[in-house]
């Protein structure tokens, strides 16, 4: 019964979304405030209905109602509760419903907090948001209904894919979707601005928090996914340039560019057309990502839906929203008024360069991801474009962007003093050079890429620290006062500094890979094996029973010289329901590096084939990601960015003028 209520709520949500699309846009056309106001109530109604639908699916999964196809195929009564819940989005239908829920949440936020916005802008934005909702509701109802019943109901479910039975599933997809879908708001507002033919700093002030939320969560989602892949796939990689990963990287790159250009627009009223373009681009890439993952056109760890009807449907949605918005852009963008002027050497100029590098990097990823698909379609030839291509193109461009980042961050708005900035950053440049030199010496004639990356990383890290010091402290200032001044700096500045610091950390972690060690061998009990500066000894092999699996655990000791540093327990899990095995890597974090051991099934005489890695600084990759996201959150907390500030300021100004 509850399941049917959920299904019915989805159908009603479609009606609400239709109303949200048609009525407010009509109202904006006619200038009728009542019709425009319908947008808010429709958005909130849609949110309530989609929430009911989602709750119904959660309930079905929690109670293991195997008469629902979705539950029977992706759950099992013995699965721990956390995986019963996260299993909801561990499959195609459920993940699309989560996507929709997040879309509705963002629409609801605009309805609730958009009071300060011009009425017509809000009405049009909600209408566009409603249209996206209509498309995805139709998609779910027509091709991917999570509430489909199964008759007769089986006694037991087919279990959640063991690879997905991991806390990573609870974190990675929701974060990623919040990021992906968060850009829908930015997109809707860009479309609304184009429809109105008017855009100003108030637009930027309202959209920027949404963009920051989306960007921060997308950053976290990508970092979480990378960490999950790292410890679960058993070969210690954290980024494979797999098409599905690229699908999440593209909106991130476009979104990063947007977050920067919207700052220029807010502060300096410049780059308007470009910012609108990026807004459309970021969400277009989110849609493209959804298409790539959900249509099954890709061979990938993530591709688990292969129904061609779905692919065609999503492709139609994709084409409609991307082509539609770009057509709107081409038609209306010339109407938008040009904004402020700036010299090429200035903060604005540096941000333009940043945007240029990021979007070009994004373009190379786009090309590398879709070229094989296009080629296969056209010639039947099957190729893969692998890591070397992406490292040489996207990697290089991002490294270039990182190396000019501290300079841009230190330049003044409007007209900057390049020489002065370089003087200011002398310490950072020196530190980077020393790090690069030391790295190169350590690697002794090996690939120097890692050394260069380490150098840039240190430059970025020290550079962002210097910027904080320079802002807070002048020679002769008492330390206490400097500290007070530092706390008084705007949070958006702190956010930016922290995010840049995070980029440095991630880069340092990536550089660390080049300094690691790898050993593939068979471990005999009691015989230590060297890996990097440490040794690993196999102590014993044992069996354990989990809730829905059995595992073989190899207990090992990690030593540095004679001292014990850590104990690790890499394992192999056997899942009965699907007759599948997974590898649980044994991890020991030492400073910021990790010893990583993954094992195969033990041989009959008790030896364990294993891969051992020493990965110095590897955890910084994800700490850096988390730091970037934290920077975004700090920026978000800035008082000047709170919702409604613009309206209150305006009201205050009117009062002041009247007096």
């Amino acid at each position, binding site marked *: 019964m509850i399941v049917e209520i959920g299904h019915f709520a989805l159908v009603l949500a479609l009606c609400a979304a239709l109303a949200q699309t048609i009525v407010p846009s009509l109202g904006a056309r006619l200038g009728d405030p009542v019709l425009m106001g319908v947008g808010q109530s429709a958005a909130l109604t849609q949110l309530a209905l989609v929430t009911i639908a989602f709750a119904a699916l959660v309930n079905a999964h929690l109670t293991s109602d195997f008469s629902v196809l979705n539950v029977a195929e992706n759950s099992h009564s013995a699965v721990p509760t956390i995986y019963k819940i996260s299993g909801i989005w561990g499959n195609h239908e459920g993940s699309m419903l989560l996507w929709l829920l997040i879309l509705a949440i963002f629409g609801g936020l605009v309805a609730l907090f958009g009071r300060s916005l011009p009425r017509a802008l809000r009405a049009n934005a909600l209408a566009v948001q409603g249209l996206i909702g209509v498309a995805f509701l139709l998609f779910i109802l027509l091709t991917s209904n999570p509430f489909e019943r199964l008759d007769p109901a089986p006694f037991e479910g087919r279990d959640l*894919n063991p690879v997905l039975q991991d806390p990573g599933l609870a974190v990675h997809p929701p974060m990623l979707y919040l990021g992906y879908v968060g850009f829908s708001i930015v997109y809707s507002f860009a479309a609304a601005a184009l429809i109105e033919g008017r855009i100003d700093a108030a637009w930027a002030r309202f959209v920027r928090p949404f963009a920051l939320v989306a960007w921060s969560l997308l950053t976290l989602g990508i970092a979480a996914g990378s960490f999950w892949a790292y410890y679960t796939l058993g070969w210690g990689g954290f980024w494979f340039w797999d098409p599905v990963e690229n699908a999440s990287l593209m909106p991130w790159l476009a979104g990063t560019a947007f977050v920067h250009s919207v700052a220029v627009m807010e502060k300096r009223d410049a780059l308007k057309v470009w910012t609108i373009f990026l807004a459309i681009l970021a969400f277009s890439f989110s849609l493209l990502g959804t298409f790539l993952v959900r249509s099954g056109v890709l061979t990938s760890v993530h591709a*688990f839906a292969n129904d061609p009807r779905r692919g065609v449907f999503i492709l139609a949605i994709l084409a409609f929203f991307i082509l539609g918005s770009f057509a709107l852009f081409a038609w209306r963008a010339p109407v938008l008024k040009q904004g402020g002027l700036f010299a090429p050497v200035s903060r604005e100029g540096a941000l333009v360069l940043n945007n*240029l590098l990021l979007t070009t990097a994004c373009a190379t990823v786009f090309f590398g991801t879709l070229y094989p698909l296009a080629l296969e379609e056209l010639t039947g*030839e099957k190729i*893969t474009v692998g890591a070397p*291509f992406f490292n040489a*193109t996207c990697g290089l461009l991002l490294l270039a962007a990182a190396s000019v980042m501290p300079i841009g961050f230190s330049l003044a708005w409007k007209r900057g003093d390049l020489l002065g900035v370089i003087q200011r950053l002398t310490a950072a440049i020196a530190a980077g050079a020393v790090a690069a030199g030391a790295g190169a010496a350590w690697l002794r004639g090996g690939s120097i890429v890692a050394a260069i990356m380490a150098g840039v990383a240190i430059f970025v890290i020290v550079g962002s620290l210097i910027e904080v010091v320079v802002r807070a402290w002048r020679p002769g200032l008492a330390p206490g006062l400097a500290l007070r001044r530092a706390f008084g700096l705007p949070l958006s500045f702190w956010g930016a500094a922290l995010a840049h610091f995070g980029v440095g950390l991630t880069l340092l972690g990536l550089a660390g890979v080049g300094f690691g060690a790898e050993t*593939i061998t*068979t471990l005999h009990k009691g015989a230590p094996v060297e890996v990097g500066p440490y040794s690993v000894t196999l102590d014993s092999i044992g069996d354990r029973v989990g809730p829905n699996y059995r595992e073989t655990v190899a207990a090992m000791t990690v030593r540095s010289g004679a001292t014990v540093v850590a104990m690790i327990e890499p394992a192999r899990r056997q899942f009965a329901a*699907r007759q599948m095995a997974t590898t649980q890597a044994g991890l020991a974090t030492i400073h910021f590096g990790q010893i990583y051991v993954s094992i195969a099934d033990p041989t009959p005489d008790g030896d364990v084939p294993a891969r051992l890695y020493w990965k110095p600084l590897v955890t910084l990759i994800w700490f850096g990601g988390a730091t970037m996201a934290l920077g975004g959150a700090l920026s978000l907390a800035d008082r000047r960015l709170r919702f409604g500030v613009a309206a209150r300021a305006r009201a205050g100004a009117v009062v002041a003028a009247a007096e």
Partner: protein
Amino acid sequence: MTRRSRRLVLIAVALAVIGAAGGIALYALRDNIVFFYSPSEVAEKAVEPGARLRVGGLVKAGSVVKSQDQNVAFVVTDGAHDLKVAYQGLLPDLFREGQGVVAEGVLAAPGELRAETILAKHDERYMPREVVDALKKQGRWQEGEASAK
């Protein structure tokens, strides 16, 4: 600087970055494309040793030989032709004789691949699409074998 000359600077920089990126992309593409072949295609096309490729097919029954330090040798077949594969490392969890596999690596000698990556089916419902295609081409595919959910 006038508005116009500023814009020219901007456009020049943009073109330089995009041009450089395009150049690098094309250059990188020339060296880093990996073709996907079935064992029959490797034989037909007389692929030169030293080329990087991905080969998909079935692991021939009884061909897997494991030796010291996790060296593995096996034969990938599509029914018509065979290709020897040598690999060092842990095999994927679902690597089995008679099952689909994709091996990526360098052709060491005609008919012999030194693999760096081995991919197998992810679960009983999913097989790399390339393997499915390779098997279909040879007419050895039974519909429903790895049913598309």
